């Protein structure tokens, strides 16, 4: 029973070692997250399809809905909740405002480790002849 102090000290050291990565991470910027650049063009052309935070969460769903409505129902006009109209097109609407795919879409996706296969077919107007 006299080892009580030793045991507690040992435990504290053990826990401290286990938590050390978290303490060392504090204050460094290795955990900052991606910082996608909203291009000047996008700012000039105005609001996105949804609010910014919603867009970050929902854009893949919207794109999925768009392509089904376009390809299956020939519907090409999208009306946002506040009445703005957009042509439903990945290359010609999203990338028309977000004309910096590398600093915008790609930066986020690299961070999140997603590689949408869309660009195997869909053209980035800036990259092709």
């Amino acid at each position, binding site marked *: 029973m006299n080892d009580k102090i030793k045991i507690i000290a040992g435990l504290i050291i053990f826990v401290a070692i286990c938590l050390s990565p978290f303490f060392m991470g504090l204050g460094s910027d290795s955990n900052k997250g991606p910082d996608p650049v909203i291009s000047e063009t996008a700012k000039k052309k105005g609001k996105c399809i949804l609010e910014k935070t919603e867009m970050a969460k929902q854009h893949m769903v919207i794109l999925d809905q*768009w392509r*089904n409505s*376009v390809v*299956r129902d020939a*519907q090409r006009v*999208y009306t946002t909740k506040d009445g703005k109209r957009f042509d439903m097109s990945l290359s010609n609407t999203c990338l028309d405002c977000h004309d910096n795919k590398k600093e915008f879409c790609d930066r986020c996706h690299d961070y999140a480790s997603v590689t949408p296969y869309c660009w195997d*077919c869909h*053209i980035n107007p800036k990259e092709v*002849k």
Partner: protein
Amino acid sequence: MKNNRRDFLKIAGVAAIGAAVKPATSAYAIGEQFVPEGQAENKSSVKKATKWGVVIDTNKLTKELMHKISKACHLEHNVPDEKNIENEDHRNPNHEIKWIWGEEFKHAFTDKTDRYLADKFEHIEIPVLCNHCVNPSCVKACPTKATFSREDGIVLMDFHRCIGCRFCMAACPFGSRSFNFKDPRPGIKKHNKKFPTRMKGVVEKCNLCAERLAVGKNPVCMEVSEGAITIGDLENETSDFRKLLKDNYTIRRKQSLGTEPSVYYIV
């Protein structure tokens, strides 16, 4: 004890049915997410028909015109050309992709090969393309519903769902479909930035310019064909399009197979 067991079995039975039905209903829903009601609509200029059809007047055709039609379509839809591939070792005539192209009469109409064919057919090529059949065998063959019959009669591909199994190519009696054996982009010299390319491993074919009809334009082939190609509504009896069919004798390709092609040839 006895009662408890009965109850347990009842609940287990109901749960088993539920477990069996749930995946079946969600499987049906896969990829069927559409824009919510009221937020998506057609462009006001959209061209609509009850059943789209095509009439091709072979009397107005020349080989040069055929070449021009094919080229215009392929440019519009980013269809690759083997000749554009820089590295000659990578060119392969078997990898050719075609949406609309010219065939000799005897190859286009395999069941109408007369021994003494009218002279005029020796000098032209018959434009062949997807027939947008009323009973399309490709649609029945497609395991993912990537190829489907749209209500207005266009047999369309949803490239997003194509897994490249090529059942549709085996099923199509007209050879209207091509497979991307390799990345098509090196074969495209100049891109139409309004239309996507395809990728290695998917099948493709004529879409009757669905993307142009949706914004009120006629198909490219019709526009450059100097009157040889006309599209219209097969079910609109009073249209000029139907008048073409009334005034002329027309044939269709491999009619005996029963796929009911929507492409009619004036011969």
